[in-house]
Each structure stands twice: as structure tokens, then as C-alpha cells.
């Protein structure tokens, strides 16, 4: 290939440097805000935000699978379960009731994510053959399988009544579960709540940045081609079977990371559900993840953070805003926070599908275009 070194990089117009600068400044500002948040918010609110981060990481994986690679999955909560269980098995030392390897927690985290990705890849022979709603229904069966397996294997997944415990992340010199902190920032003691918040925020940022990189590059192009026209994708050199499997594996790996975060969020408790339609890893959660993706705009990583804020954040936030004193008055009626948020996001989904199929991401683009005009 002939290459002229001095040639201007036509693919990157002159404005790119400026937008890059703006983006860097924006990211830094966001970073500072997130860093300072735990100093001003009480741990209750931190927990809400951490739950949002957890949902966001999972939803990013699902939105890539559905919105970019064009494959529907209702199995996301299953992969969240796989991630949580894997981490518990790898990280905890194990005892007479449970199997555990007691690996360093960072290694266990990485292994848990990889394991979940591989389990997702195992589903490839099925995901490669089915399309649309058929794939959705087939994948939903994984949630039932996961529920059954977890209840059959308490030595691995923990018993459904009491669960099992996995340690928090310990990096050399920094324990995210620190009970007796000696670290102070602006006179605020940085305990496990503050540390975990930072960890969750960092993992979310990492998941976002990684996803952006892949989606804007060769991988994302291959996925979009497969999504829009498989024959065209093949002619352009994309192995459709392989890219579908990759998308499923990546999506599952994200769910796996979310699964580890779920375990940390419950202070290390890994406990399988006692019913398949209700709990942390059941069908309701699978649908919730789908809702986050739809609300955020299918395929949009940033949108899935917003989707998570609505679907995972609101039900936790409403009771807090309502105040502890009047909590009783609400729970007496049919309108519990969960019901209210279900109504809100149900209505949102209907509105979005009717008026703005690209979700909040599409809405954002419209606003940007209006402002630029």
C-alpha cells in the first residue's frame, strides 16, 4: 500500500482535536465530581448509585448485543448469576459446605468475567441458529436453567436460604472492604462505602471506555454489518457465526462483571433466588435489563447508564426521598416504590417505542442537533 506520511489525516477532520479536548475536559470534570460524591452523600444514596452502576455495566453488555450485533437475549440475569457464582468460587477460601479456591480477589474478578464470557460463547451454537424473538425465548430458558442449577448446587452457588460469602476486592495497599479506615479525604473518613463507590464508578467507566473502543472499531463495524445484512457482512469478510458468538461472549462477560458487582453490593453475599420470577437473578431482572437498553436507546452505551438510573435507581431512590418516617404510609397502599417505578418505566418503554425508538440516546442526538442549528 502506498503511503504518504505528510498527507493530512482526512478521516479525522480538523475539528476532531477540539472535540477530543472538550471530551477530555468533560471526562475529567465528571471524574472529579464522582470522586467527591462520597464525601457529600450519605451511604444510603451511595448504595443507590452503586446499584445503578451495577445495572449500567450489565445493560452496556446487553445493549451491545441487541443494538449493535442484532441479537435478542433475555438471559442476561442468568449471566449475572454466573458471574457472581464464579467470583464466589474463585475468591472465597471455601469451607465444609462450599467449594472455593481462595484466589487473590483481583485475579478472581478477572477469572469470573472470563468464565462468564466463555459460558456465553457456549451458547453460540444456539444463538447462531435462532433469530429475533425465537432467540429471546430460547435464551430465557437459561434463566430457568440457572435457577434450577443454583438451587441444586448449594456447595457452589450457596444455599438459597443463607447463601455464601465472597470477599471484597483487595488491591495491594488498598482494601475496598476496609473496616477500620485510616484514610481521610477532606476530613471525611473513607470507609468501605466510599471505597466501594469509587470502585463501582471506576468499573463502570472502564466498561464504558472499553465498549466505546470496540464499537467504534473493527469489531463494532462487523457487528453492525451482521445486524443489518448478514449476506453483505459475509461478502465484506465478516464471519457471521464467529461475530455472533463474540457478541454473545462479550455481552455475557459484561453481565459477569455486573454479577461480581451484585455480590459486592450485597456486602459479599452470593445467594441464589428462592423463586425464578422474583429476586436478583430471575426473569424480572432479565426483563429489567432489556428495559434499560430500550429506555437508553438500543445500542447506546451512555443510554444504558441512563436506563439503569431509571430502572434500577428509581425503586431504591423513591423510598429514601419519601423519608423513613412516612415509609409505612406508602407501603400500606398498593403503590409501593417498586410498583411506581414499574409503572414509570413501563410507560416510558411504550412512549419510546411509539415516539423515539432510539430511546434517550436518540432524544439526546435530536437536542444536540437543535442546539447546533
Amino acid at each position: 500500500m502506498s503511503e504518504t506520511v505528510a498527507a493530512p489525516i482526512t478521516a479525522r477532520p480538523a475539528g476532531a482535536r477540539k472535540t477530543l479536548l472538550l471530551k477530555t475536559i468533560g471526562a475529567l470534570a465528571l471524574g472529579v465530581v464522582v470522586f467527591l460524591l462520597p464525601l457529600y452523600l450519605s451511604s444510603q444514596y451511595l448504595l443507590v448509585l452503586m446499584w445503578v452502576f451495577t445495572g449500567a455495566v450489565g445493560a452496556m453488555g446487553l445493549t451491545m448485543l441487541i443494538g449493535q450485533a442484532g441479537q435478542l437475549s433475555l438471559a442476561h440475569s442468568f449471566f449475572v448469576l454466573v458471574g457472581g457464582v464464579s467470583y464466589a468460587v474463585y475468591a472465597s477460601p471455601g469451607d465444609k459446605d462450599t467449594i472455593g479456591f481462595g484466589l487473590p480477589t483481583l485475579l478472581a474478578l478477572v477469572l469470573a468475567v472470563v468464565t462468564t464470557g466463555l459460558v456465553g460463547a457456549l451458547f453460540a451454537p444456539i444463538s447462531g441458529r435462532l433469530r429475533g424473538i425465537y432467540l429471546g425465548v430460547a435464551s430465557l430458558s437459561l434463566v430457568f436453567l440457572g435457577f434450577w442449577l443454583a438451587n441444586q448446587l448449594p456447595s457452589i452457588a450457596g444455599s438459597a436460604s443463607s447463601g455464601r460469602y465472597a470477599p471484597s476486592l483487595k488491591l495491594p495497599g488498598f482494601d475496598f472492604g476496609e473496616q477500620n479506615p485510616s484514610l481521610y479525604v477532606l476530613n471525611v473518613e473513607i470507609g468501605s462505602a466510599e471505597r466501594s463507590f469509587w470502585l463501582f464508578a471506576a468499573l463502570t467507566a472502564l466498561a464504558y471506555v472499553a465498549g466505546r473502543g470496540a464499537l467504534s472499531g473493527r469489531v463494532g463495524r462487523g457487528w453492525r454489518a451482521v445486524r443489518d445484512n448478514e449476506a453483505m457482512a459475509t461478502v465484506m469478510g465478516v464471519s457471521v457465526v464467529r461475530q455472533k458468538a463474540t457478541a454473545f461472549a462479550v455481552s455475557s462477560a459484561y453481565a459477569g462483571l455486573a454479577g461480581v458487582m451484585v455480590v459486592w453490593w450485597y456486602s459479599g453475599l452470593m445467594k441464589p433466588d428462592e423463586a425464578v420470577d422474583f429476586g436478583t437473578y430471575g426473569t424480572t431482572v432479565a426483563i429489567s435489563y432489556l428495559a434499560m437498553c430500550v429506555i437508553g436507546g438500543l445500542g447506546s452505551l451512555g443510554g444504558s447508564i441512563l436506563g439503569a438510573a431509571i430502572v434500577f435507581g428509581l425503586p431504591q431512590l423513591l423510598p429514601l426521598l419519601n423519608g423513613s418516617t412516612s415509609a409505612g404510609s406508602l407501603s400500606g397502599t398498593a403503590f409501593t416504590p417498586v410498583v411506581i417505578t414499574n409503572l414509570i418505566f413501563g410507560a416510558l418503554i411504550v412512549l419510546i417505542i411509539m415516539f423515539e425508538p432510539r430511546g434517550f440516546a436518540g432524544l439526546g442526538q435530536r437536542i444536540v442537533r437543535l442546539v447546533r442549528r
Partner: protein
Amino acid sequence: MTATPAAASPPAATRNVKPLQIEDISVRFGGILALDSVSFTVAPGTIHALIGPNGAGKSTCFNAITRIYPLASGRILLGDNDLASVPGHRIASLGVGRAFQNLALVDSATVIDNVMLGRYSLTKGGFLSYAVRAPWTMKSERRHADRAAEICDFLGVGQHLHRPAGMLSYGDQKRVDIARALAVEPTILLLDEPAAGMNASETAEMSELIRDIRDELGISILLVEHDMGLVMGIADRVTVLDFGRRLADDVPAAVQKDPEVIRAYLGSDDDERQETP
């Protein structure tokens, strides 16, 4: 074309352009034979037109070459390579680029993103290397993006690089589709009705462009087109299909005089044609 084709083309000599031999191929859909023992050869560096009435099997022939439809019999050779012996997604890396009859762009993606898809088999890197933005991956990405942008300039869509492809005019989308096919750095380019839906001046530009592609890049072009003026003006050789069979295969002047070809074209509106398979 005001672009700089000289910069856009690696020296023709670096591309080892080989003949494309279609040997006795048949394609069957249930009961119907969409292609019935068709043979022809696209000589290196020529524009070879494939014409015929609607439903003659032209697109089917493209789909057979690009392995979208399986062959019932016959062989397709590009040089020494039997195209049937490699998986479908390897065809591009053997040097086959294809633009589609019905636009097959990713509408939501930008023009440059669409054209970069053509570089897929020329590049490496999976999820992880892009996720961590490995320096060598990013370097190759930039290099290939430059080349893709060059190709877009060559096709006259260089000013739209960062617009969603779906927002371009029909004619420009056709050009993006061709740019993507060229981004494969093919030795043979398959063009399925590049001038469909274009007015006279756009068609003239397109014919100029196709000639430029052959002359600047030195590659072969297999062209399906209904516009006879365009075909007869630029084709070095013409193969005529009708009902999946080869009616004629000759230089344009001879094909135009062929009585069977004239009958097939003049008779294409007759009612009886619709009935016989």
C-alpha cells in the same frame, strides 16, 4: 471526477489481477434453475458486462460468485483459487469486492465507518485490542481510515465522511457502496446496477467513474447494468443471460447484432414470456 486517482491507487502492478473463470455453473431454487450451465471468463483488467432482462439470473450469478447461493454444479475460479473451496467470508480476502443492487449500507453508521467495513479482512484485532486501544491496533486503524478516506475522495463522497450513510442521496449512497467494495482492495469488482435510478448526467458520471476504476487501479470489473448506452459504451466484453442460460458472449458490437439477443430484449414485454420458466 476531480479526485486524485493517482494517489488513491496503489500501482496497478502490485495487484496481481487474475482472470475470473465461471465454468458451467448452475444454481437451483427448488424447482427453478436460476442459472443453467453458465460459463464465461472475465479477462484481467477488463470491464465485462453481464446483461439480460429482469430475472435473467444476473444477481444470482453475483450471489454464486460471492458464495451467498450454493452452486448446484460447476466451478468458479479466480486465478488458481476455487472460490467454492473457501468459506464465504474469505472471498473478500481473495480479492473480490462487491457493490449491491439494493443498497446494503449500514444506514445508521457514518460513511467512513461503512467504507472501513471493506477493510475488515485486511485488518486484525478483536474486542480486547480495540477495548484497550492497543497502540499498534490504533495505528493500523488510522492508516486504513486514511486509505478509506482516499477511496471516498476518489468516488466523490469525501465530503460526507462523518455523516450517517442513510442520510445521503441515493446516488451518493451508491457511490459509498462502491467505495466500500473498493476498500477491499479487490482484483475483481462486482457492480450490480450501479446506475440504477440515476438520471442521464449521473449515469454519464458513473460510466466515467467505472472506466477510471479500471484504468487507475487496473482491476477487472464485472458489471450488471440495464442501461444499454452505458454498457455498450464502456464494456470490453458482454455476456447475455436470459432465463438463466447464456445467450451470447462477445464484444459489444457483435452482441448488439446477435438476433437471439435482440429477440430476448424485444420480446421481454410479451405475455408468453412471463409463463414459460
